[in-house]
């Protein structure tokens, strides 16, 4: 069930009606949200609801045992291992089997492991990280032990973030479940986020995908350098608009249910350093990796070489988190290597306007280069793509038209608008009566729908 669909709208109508009827009954409201979240998840494949429930049970039990002080370290290790085992089985088993068989073939061995073709449960990477963050936070004493199973079920399954994030920490979300919030629901801000998110996904991301990125990445040898370069920019804008749109809508839907979500994007392509890019891109993942991987590995505390190693390991694993494939390993390695080199050079932040522009352009193009590996079908296609960037410049463009180029420019312009442009808009809308906000939102959604292509493509981050 995708957010920008009629099915989701009907689903949310039922949820909103239930929440309105249960206003003032906090436990009942949470129970309704758990049922709704499991229904939402079952819309993909109901079998995996058991996996989600099991993952929640592991986290809940581990939290209780750690809180009781029983062999804390052992419980922590076993619980994390169980989460990783589930993730490894469903997400990486096929990849590992294929890689092992290829290696055996290269070594001239006849032995071959059986290929099972495991179905990847939607959102498993996200709820696994939720579970691990809770257990580690309880162990560290950063969050109180969750003693209500209902709260744990909701923390792990809350439908706005269930399948594509943002990764909401236990220390951020569980306190919101402890007692009802008396803050009003930010209806105007939610409406602006929904409309902005829809525009980014339905218009910008979908047209860039169908009009340029998909055909060019599908057959890079059929195009010359200009198309390949524009397709790279198109994908950079597409993935940002696709993922940040999902996040915007998730934040808005959570807000309409009465909950707060953290910020996940902050105009990443305006970053002047790669480190800054990671402070602006998928913030909930980058801070997760920092706090649960980079810092426990030693962070920057044990000398330069160890810092570079830790950066590389963190980003390599961050790459693998995105998907089971060598192209994601390469993507992570490039980011890890880039961060290490940046630290090695100790580049100061540029002070002049020219310096800032050059830094931004360099960082953006480095990120674009990594996106080629991320998007290409495999390593070979990525290599052909990069090779093709330097050829066929005299042929001009075949695939990219003024419309797709305009969309790339609009997407990039969004990176350089005054920070949080939506705030004054939302503040102005706050003064408008709710019925009018509803009508404006409905008309806005209809207009965005008319502007977009027919049908809704799945969000890129669903496969992670």
């Amino acid at each position: 069930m995708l957010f920008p669909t009629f099915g989701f709208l009907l689903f949310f109508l039922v949820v909103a009606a239930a929440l309105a009827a249960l206003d003032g009954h906090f436990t009942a409201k949470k129970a309704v949200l758990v049922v709704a979240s499991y229904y939402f998840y079952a819309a993909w494949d109901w079998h995996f609801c058991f996996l989600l429930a099991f993952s929640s049970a592991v986290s809940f039990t581990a939290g209780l045992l750690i809180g009781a002080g029983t062999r804390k370290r052992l419980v922590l290790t076993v619980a994390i291992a169980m989460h990783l085992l589930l993730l490894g089985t469903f997400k990486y088993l096929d990849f590992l089997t294929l890689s092992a068989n290829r290696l055996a073939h290269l070594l001239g061995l006849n032995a071959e492991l059986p290929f099972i073709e495991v179905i990847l449960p939607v959102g498993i990477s996200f709820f696994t990280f939720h579970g691990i963050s809770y257990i580690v936070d309880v162990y560290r004493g950063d969050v109180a032990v969750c003693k209500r199973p209902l709260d744990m079920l909701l923390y792990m399954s809350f439908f706005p973030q269930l399948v594509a994030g943002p990764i909401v920490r236990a220390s951020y979300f569980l306190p919101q479940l402890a007692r009802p919030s008396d803050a009003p629901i930010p209806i105007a801000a939610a409406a602006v986020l929904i409309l902005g998110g829809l525009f980014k996904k339905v218009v910008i991301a979908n047209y860039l995908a169908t009009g340029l990125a998909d055909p060019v990445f599908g057959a890079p040898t059929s195009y010359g350098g200009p198309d390949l370069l524009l397709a790279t920019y198109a994908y950079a804008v597409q993935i940002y608009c696709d993922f940040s749109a999902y996040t915007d809508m998730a934040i808005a839907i959570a807000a309409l249910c009465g909950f707060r979500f953290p910020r996940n994007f902050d105009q990443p392509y305006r970053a002047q350093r790669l480190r800054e890019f990671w402070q602006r891109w998928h913030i909930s993942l980058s801070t997760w990796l920092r706090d649960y991987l980079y810092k426990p590995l030693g962070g920057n505390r044990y000398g330069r070489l160890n810092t570079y190693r830790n950066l590389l390991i963190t980003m390599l694993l961050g790459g693998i988190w995105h998907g089971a494939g060598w192209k994601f390993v390469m993507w992570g390695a490039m980011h890890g290597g880039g961060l290490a080199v940046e630290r090695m050079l100790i580049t100061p932040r540029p002070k002049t306007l020219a310096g800032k522009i050059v830094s931004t352009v360099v960082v953006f193009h480095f990120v674009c280069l990594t996106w080629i590996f991320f998007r290409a079908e495999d390593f070979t296609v990525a290599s052909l793509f990069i090779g093709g960037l330097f050829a066929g410049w005299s042929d001009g463009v075949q695939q990219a038209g003024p419309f797709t180029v305009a969309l790339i420019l609009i997407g990039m312009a969004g990176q350089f608008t005054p920070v949080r442009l939506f705030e004054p808009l939302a503040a102005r809308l706050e003064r408008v009566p709710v019925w009018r906000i509803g009508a404006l939102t409905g008309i806005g959604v209809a207009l965005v729908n008319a502007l977009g292509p027919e049908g809704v493509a799945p969000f890129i981050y669903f496969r992670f």
Partner: protein
Amino acid sequence: MPREPTSPVADAIPPRLRRKGGTPRQVLALTLIGTLALGLFASRDLPSWTERFEIPALSRLAATWDGAMAALGLTRPHETLRAAVARLIEVGWGGKD
């Protein structure tokens, strides 16, 4: 002894935009009115949206509704926008393709 819950990340919707707002009942009203407005102005796509539910009666109702909206002229903005975008997509670098 557990420390106070920490929140190392910033809220996506800042507190200053949470001072005024609504209640769950107003959220329901917003959703209902929004759905109605969507039904009025996006009726052209309603038949294809409802097809996915595989309920023939619902599909027929959506088609009838779309016909009624077209008779009222409410489908014109949708058709104009879609046609305009289709024309924009066709435009090549030398002007019209």
